[in-house]
């Protein structure tokens, strides 16, 4: 597992340039351009299970969801941030990508530290020290547990059609 570290106010143009927004929609089309203007090393070297440690307001700017789709598709396990922009946060819930809002953990992390987390308990451990992060409300966990917003919506539509 590799940890990728980035700074403050990383916007969605840096995570996925706007010039591809209307030509790349599928995971395979998105992957080569992920983080293209932020870190050209990322897309070729990211592996299943990797984690991002980032500053406040991560994912600000455009509502484009390609960054979330792409990070999920390459197997990023979680993003640990000092804070997330709200549309990005919502998009991550909708795709079932785990976001951990925990400024203390971001401040504590040093290169090479061991990182463990428990999404259900809402805890993250950095170099043996545990920190709590806010868990999602039950209504929202229902979306994540269904596997994302579209599977959740199908489930609800079928229930509503039957009743």
């Amino acid at each position, binding site marked *: 597992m590799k940890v990728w570290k980035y700074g403050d106010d990383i916007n969605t143009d840096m995570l996925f340039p706007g*010039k591809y927004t209307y030509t790349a929609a599928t995971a395979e089309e998105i992957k080569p351009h992920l983080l293209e203007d932020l870190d050209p090393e990322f897309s070729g070297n990211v592996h299943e299970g990797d984690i991002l440690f980032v500053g406040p307001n991560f994912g600000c700017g455009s509502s484009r969801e390609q960054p979330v789709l792409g990070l999920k598709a390459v197997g990023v396990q979680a993003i640990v941030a000092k804070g997330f922009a709200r549309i990005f946060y919502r998009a991550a819930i909708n795709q079932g990508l785990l976001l951990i809002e925990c400024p203390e953990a971001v401040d504590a992390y040093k290169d090479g530290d061991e990182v463990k987390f428990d999404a259900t308990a809402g805890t993250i451990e950095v170099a043996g020290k545990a920190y709590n992060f806010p868990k999602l409300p039950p209504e929202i966990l229902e979306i994540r547990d269904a596997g994302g917003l579209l599977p959740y919506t199908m489930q609800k539509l079928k229930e509503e059609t039957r009743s």
Partner: protein
Amino acid sequence: MGKTFAEKILAKKSGQDEVVPGQIVIVEPDHLLTHDNTAAIIGKIGAELEEFGVARPDMPVIILDHVIPAASEKTATNHLNTRDYVKKHNLKNFFDVGQGICHQVLVEKGLAHPGNILVGSDSHTCSYGAVGAFATGVDRTEAAALILRGKTWLRVPDTIKMTFTNELRPGVTAKDLILHIIGDIGAGGASYQAVEFHGNITSLNMEDRLTIANMGIEMGAKIAVFEVDDQTRAYLTSIGVNESEYESVWADPDASYIRELTYDLSTIEPVVAAPHKVDNVKPVTELEGLEFQQFLLGTCTNGRLGDLEEAADILDGKQIADGTRLLVLPASKEVYEAALEKGVITRLSKSGAIVLPPGCGPCLGAHQGVLAPGERCLSTANRNFKGRMGCKEAEIYLASPATVAASALTGKLTDPRKVLEGVPQ
């Protein structure tokens, strides 16, 4: 205890007596905006659309504006698939290529009502706070789910109260004001929160309010909203939306805020947002003389009639500097035609402007006016992110239409008050 705008509207729309910040509510938005991303959105739910159809056919508003006319076979196919979808499901709120930028067209067509909830798969959906609507951006997947089910969840936000005192001085515009505010509180300064504008809003016309609300997202705000006043009502009446068609909502005087800020409008100066963050705001006077190759006047932030007129007045028949380009994009066909009738387009063109079709154009770097490495663009848009205009080695500075026009004359960053006769700096 009184309630904020967000608390009142979300309680009303979720059928509850009251709600509190942090609470999750289920709402049926009055409208869902999608644009060129419509094709990708319906592409996610092809089979389900066949089976369940569109939940509320009056809800979707579809406006093609981002890459218009199409720049490639791929973008042309997106438009084609969108037209097929609109026809098949008999959706009446559809505006094809050429009508203008979604955030301008939706307002002009009378689809943003005070007291309504609008969501859109575009971050600048917050623009409709200018007419007293609760309006916020969502992602494409959320839009797909809304098309099928017609409802979604919203978290009740905390609210920042911003109070304006006095008036902007000549040569200083609403764009300078909102850039100043973003520079003050930061790009994430209103994250997850609602922003209400109070105080002396009467000196800000509807175009000014649209510029300000449009940039709410650049401070992270969920919504950025103005109270409905005589100007709002008069504007809505002028576009055929009568008072009987809407019910305005506004905060109680004793509402509880997470933060309260006051801005004295008379102290605001012309400013720019320097690369590569919108909160990197500096006075124009600090960077005067910085050279630019391209100037952009338009976008959902500043492509309205008043913006074009202001620029034409400053250019005043003179030529833009040698070796520079001034791109002008009216925000909509209506703005374009009004500007044509008033001779504004002719004046801009005679000063050397290249007039592009009403749409998003160069703002997102997908086509038209892409920058070369090492070039600088002074733009009236809302974002100066690295790579935003198609080239990560180029620089984008954000400014008001007045500053863009004054600077286009010299090819260098210029304080518009220097050009405006009799205006003190």
